[in-house]
C-alpha cells in the first residue's frame, strides 16, 4: 500500500486522454514515479499546454519544488477507539510531525472532512489542539461525521465563519482558485453524496469570471467521481459541478471519505483521494462493508498518511505526493 497504483498507466508512465477527439488539446498529462516506499509523485500538466510535455526536465525531486505548496489531510475521526486504530491521537500527531518535517513548508493545510468521529465538541477541540502545532492556516470542509446531529451548525460555527450556505466557499492563492464544497448533507435514501442546486448555482457563478487558464483545485469530503456506488462512494450531482469546470485547463479534485489513495485522470481533471490519518478502509467491494479495516498493528502507519501538493506556476502543473505515516520522511513515531 505504500506505493500507489494507478489505472491506465502505459509503459512510459504517461496517461493520456482525449475523449473528445476534436483536436482541441484538453489532454491531461500525468507522470508518476514510484517514491521509494512512500507513495508516488505525479506531475500533471493541464490541457492548455499546446505541446506534449513528455519527459519533464530534472529529477523527480525537482518537480516537487513548486511555487505554492500545500498539504491535504483527511478523515482524522477523532474519538474513534475501535481495534482498527485505538489511538487516533497518535496517528494524527504523526501526520503533523510529517507535515512539519516537509522540506518545503506548506502555505496552508486542507482538511477534507471527518475531523471528528461523532461531532462532539471535545473531538473537534482535540484535533484543533493537535493541528495547532503546524502553525498553518487550515481550510476545512465537513465529512458526514462532522454534521451528525445539527445539520452542521457546530461545524460552521467553528470552521465555516466565512462560508456560504451549508459551508461552501472559495479563495485564491498564487493564482490558483480553491473551491471547498459540501456534499455530506441532505442526502436522499438510496443515493450518494449530494451537492444540491443552491450550491451548484453558487459554483457556476463563482467560476464564471475566471480565465480558462486559472488552475482550479476543488476539495470536498465524498469523492466527486463515482468509485463504488454500492458503498455510496460517489456524488449524485458531481457531473453538473464538473460541467461548470470543463473549460478550465487544469482542474484538480481532492477528496477523502474512502480512507485510501486513488487517482483518475479524465481530460483536464485529475481526481485524487487521500489517506485517512485514523484507519484504512477496504478496496471497493473487497469486503462485506466499507467499515474500518483492521490491519496488523505494525502495518497501520503504512496505510495512513498525508498528501503533499505543489503548484509550479510557469509550468502550469500540480504535483501530488502521497506519503504514508510509515515512510522515512516521518520525523517521529511517538
Amino acid at each position: 500500500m505504500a506505493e500507489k497504483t494507478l489505472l491506465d498507466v502505459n509503459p512510459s508512465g504517461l496517461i493520456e486522454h482525449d475523449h473528445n477527439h476534436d483536436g482541441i488539446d484538453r489532454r491531461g498529462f500525468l507522470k508518476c514515479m514510484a517514491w521509494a516506499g512512500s507513495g508516488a509523485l505525479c506531475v500533471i500538466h493541464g490541457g492548455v499546454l499546446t505541446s506534449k510535455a513528455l519527459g519533464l526536465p530534472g529529477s523527480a525531486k525537482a518537480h516537487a519544488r513548486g511555487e505554492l505548496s500545500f498539504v491535504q489531510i483527511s478523515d482524522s475521526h477523532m474519538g474513534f477507539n475501535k481495534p482498527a486504530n485505538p489511538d487516533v491521537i497518535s496517528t494524527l500527531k504523526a501526520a503533523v510531525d510529517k507535515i512539519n518535517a516537509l522540506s518545503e513548508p506548506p502555505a496552508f493545510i486542507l482538511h477534507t472532512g471527518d475531523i471528528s468521529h461523532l461531532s462532539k465538541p471535545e473531538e473537534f477541540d482535540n484535533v484543533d489542539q493537535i493541528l495547532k502545532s503546524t502553525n498553518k492556516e487550515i481550510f476545512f470542509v465537513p465529512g458526514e461525521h462532522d454534521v451528525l446531529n445539527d445539520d452542521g451548525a457546530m461545524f460552521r460555527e467553528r470552521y465555516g465563519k466565512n462560508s456560504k450556505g451549508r459551508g461552501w466557499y472559495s479563495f485564491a492563492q498564487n493564482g490558483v482558485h480553491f473551491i471547498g464544497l459540501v456534499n455530506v448533507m441532505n442526502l436522499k435514501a438510496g443515493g450518494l453524496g449530494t451537492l444540491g442546486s443552491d450550491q451548484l448555482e453558487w459554483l457556476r457563478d463563482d467560476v464564471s469570471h475566471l480565465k480558462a487558464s486559472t488552475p482550479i483545485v476543488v476539495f470536498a469530503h465524498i469523492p466527486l467521481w463515482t468509485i463504488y456506488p454500492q458503498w455510496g462512494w460517489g456524488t449524485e450531482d458531481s457531473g453538473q459541478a464538473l460541467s461548470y469546470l470543463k473549460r478550465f485547463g487544469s482542474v484538480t479534485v481532492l477528496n477523502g471519505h474512502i480512507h485510501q489513495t486513488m487517482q483518475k485522470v479524465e481530460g483536464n481533471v485529475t481526481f485524487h483521494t487521500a489517506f485517512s490519518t485514523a484507519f484504512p478502509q477496504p478496496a471497493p467491494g473487497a469486503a462485506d462493508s466499507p467499515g474500518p479495516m483492521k490491519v496488523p498493528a505494525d502495518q497501520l502507519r503504512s496505510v495512513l498518511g498525508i498528501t503533499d501538493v505543489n503548484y509550479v506556476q510557469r509550468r502550469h502543473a500540480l504535483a501530488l505526493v502521497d506519503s504514508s505515516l510509515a515512510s522515512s520522511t516521518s520525523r517521529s513515531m511517538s
Partner: protein
Amino acid sequence: MRKKLLFGGVAIATVICALSLLHGAKRENAPSSAAMLLVNIDNFSFSPETVSVPVNSTVTWVNKDDVPHVIASTQGVFKSRALDTDDKYSYKFTKPGTYSYFCSIHPSMVGKIVVR
C-alpha cells in the same frame, strides 16, 4: 463476517417467532403494544431489512458497527440521533402503513417497517 451475519439472522428470526407467538396468544385486555422488534445494524445494513409488525409495536435498532449510523424515516416521520456502537434507538408505530427509512449519513443503507 458472513458467519456472524447468519447468526444475527437466526437470532432475529427466533425473536420474531417468539414475538408472533406472544402476539397470537395475547388476550383482549392485554396492552395493544404487545410486540417489540429488534433490527440489527451490522456491516452497513439493516437486518432484517423489511419487517412487518402489528400496530402499536415498538421497533428498536441496535448499532453493531464500528461507525455511527442515523436512522431516518424517508418521509420525515422519525429520526434518531447518531447511534454509536451498541447504541439503541426505539420508535413506537401507532398508525398502520409502510415506513421506509434509511441511514441519513450512509444513504445506501435502506430498510422498511410495515405496520399492520
